[in-house]
């Protein structure tokens, strides 16, 4: 195709389609670009290749049955999604969760945030050709998988949270397992950091690539590490603290230029901050109940259900009708690994949700993708794509 550019020069552009089945597009993103040589003159992104109908599916079940579906939104950090959803439902009930549950939720959120950042950085470096980092990072990640498996029974799709609490308490030796994992993670984080820190190839391929200004990023609704990489110091954990995040000691990591390098480094250092939060949370773990004793949301214990008529009926109702959320509409969000993950719930007062809308942090980042890559090379586009950490399950729902 031939075009005239702004200066009246005639360009011969080549149309190239990248994805959806391409190693760097994670199987479900499609980008079509007009190239002049190797420079991208225009890019258009298409999504929807993994649109699985989350929002339609959840309307058919009870609130508790939404939990497994939320696992598969951002499947790199499933527990964060579970917690976000249960927090949204709890806020509609206006219930306060127990102290131990709060600490455990903070612990598990940060734990999965570490895992998510590990996967993102590992995949990004592998896309850049640095396969070593992938092998380094997947050693602690496998340890994390074992801990998650012991704790929740599943490796990836954990469904750990419940409305009003958690699925179950920790197992014996959980703390030492986690501390062990943290130590290994710290080691591999610093190992990889040493590999890329002064690496000319890495720096040349990431610095100054895919820049975005804070104003544009905000207009695109960016949140989370990608927004912080542009220099905007905003973090829901600090700004609207939930689960007593204000009492933990951690820093928000902020970049300066909003390029690929900053985005990756913000994630690396954020993982370090998360490690320190997990350590603080472990120190705070005190024995206590993990589920609220509110008959509207939590099932009575087995002993009561077997001997007490009301408890039996309550249990029966909760299982068959589900949690009956008060009628109304509410939006509630928390800081997930990718940014603000929110759930907008419309309830009609029955046990089945009327409408649940997810606010996916990825979508906003991918919507700005053409701004990041236009003017750069095709290979830069690949580096850029992996640095914004698109998780298709969340993007397309």
């Amino acid at each position, binding site marked *: 195709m031939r075009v005239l550019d702004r200066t009246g020069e005639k360009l011969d552009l080549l149309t190239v389609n990248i994805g959806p089945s391409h190693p760097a597009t*994670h*199987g479900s993103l499609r980008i079509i670009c007009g190239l002049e040589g190797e420079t991208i003159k225009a890019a258009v992104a298409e999504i929807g290749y993994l649109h*699985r109908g989350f929002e339609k599916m959840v309307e058919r079940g009870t609130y508790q049955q939404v939990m497994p579906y939320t696992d598969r939104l951002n499947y790199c950090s499933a527990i964060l999604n579970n917690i976000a959803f249960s927090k949204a439902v709890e806020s509609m009930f206006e219930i306060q969760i127990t102290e131990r549950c709060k600490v455990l939720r903070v612990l598990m959120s940060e734990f999965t945030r570490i895992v998510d950042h590990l996967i993102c950085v590992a995949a990004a470096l592998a896309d850049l050709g640095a396969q070593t980092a992938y092998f380094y990072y997947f050693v602690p990640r496998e340890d994390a998988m074992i801990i998650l498996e012991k704790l929740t029974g599943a490796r990836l799709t954990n469904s750990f949270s419940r409305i009003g609490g958690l699925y179950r308490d920790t197992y014996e030796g959980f703390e030492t397992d986690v501390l062990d994992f943290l130590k290994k993670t710290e080691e591999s984080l610093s190992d990889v950091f040493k590999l890329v820190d002064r690496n000319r190839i890495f720096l040349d391929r990431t610095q100054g690539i895919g820049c975005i200004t804070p104003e544009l990023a905000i207009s695109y609704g960016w949140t989370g590490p990608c927004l912080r990489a542009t220099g905007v110091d905003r973090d829901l954990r600090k700004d609207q603290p939930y689960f007593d995040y204000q009492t933990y000691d951690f820093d928000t990591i902020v970049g300066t230029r909003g390029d690929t390098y900053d985005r990756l480094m913000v994630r690396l250092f954020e993982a370090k901050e998360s490690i320190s939060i997990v350590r603080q949370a472990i120190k705070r773990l005190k024995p206590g109940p993990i589920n609220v004793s509110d008959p509207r949301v939590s099932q009575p214990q087995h002993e009561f259900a077997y001997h007490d008529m009301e408890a039996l009926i309550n249990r029966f109702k909760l299982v068959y009708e589900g949690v009956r959320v008060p009628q109304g509409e509410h939006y509630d969000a928390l800081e997930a690994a990718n940014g603000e993950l929110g759930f907008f719930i419309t309830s009609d007062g029955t046990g089945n949700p009327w409408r649940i809308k997810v606010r996916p942090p990825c979508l906003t980042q991918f919507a700005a993708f053409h701004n990041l890559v236009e003017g750069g090379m095709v290979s830069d586009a690949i580096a850029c794509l992996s640095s914004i950490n698109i998780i298709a399950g969340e993007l397309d729902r």
Partner: protein
Amino acid sequence: MSAEIENSPVPQQEAATLPFLTTSLDAVINWGRSNSLWPFPFATACCAIEFMSLMSARYDFARFGTEFMRFTPRQSDLLMIMGTVTYKQAPILRRIYEQMSAPRWVIAVGACASSGGFYDSYCTVPGIDHIIPVDVFIAGCPPRPEAYIEAAVQLQEKIKDESFLTERLARLRDRGEDLPS
């Protein structure tokens, strides 16, 4: 094999003393095919994250001859579909399968690829066998890495039962030709 030995530069008497094996052509070809499967990971969703675990150090899928990941269908003979296939994705999957050259095998990984999983909705294909033939299904949501390995081993077993010549003959007959005499 003996014809080869007769024409070989090694003198005849010496060749007779060399150790050699006789076997069927099928056995040799299937041995080669089953131990050097080159997978094309058609990774769309969560199951692909477990595939990343599988390729990493602890599970090391390369032990089963599937060392070489190929991202082009023309150079691979094993198509692994990991994740949900939607109707938007379906023409692409079909096309990738058509681009693979025979012999080709397909593994459907996880509940979604096998049956649609718990996404019984307006946009997901209820099992990729609606689009392409499948050799091995793996259950699980997501399957454990061990299950992937078991599927690979099962596929190897399956390949060992195939017959190269009958396969080729069937394909020729399909086109209305016969084996050259």
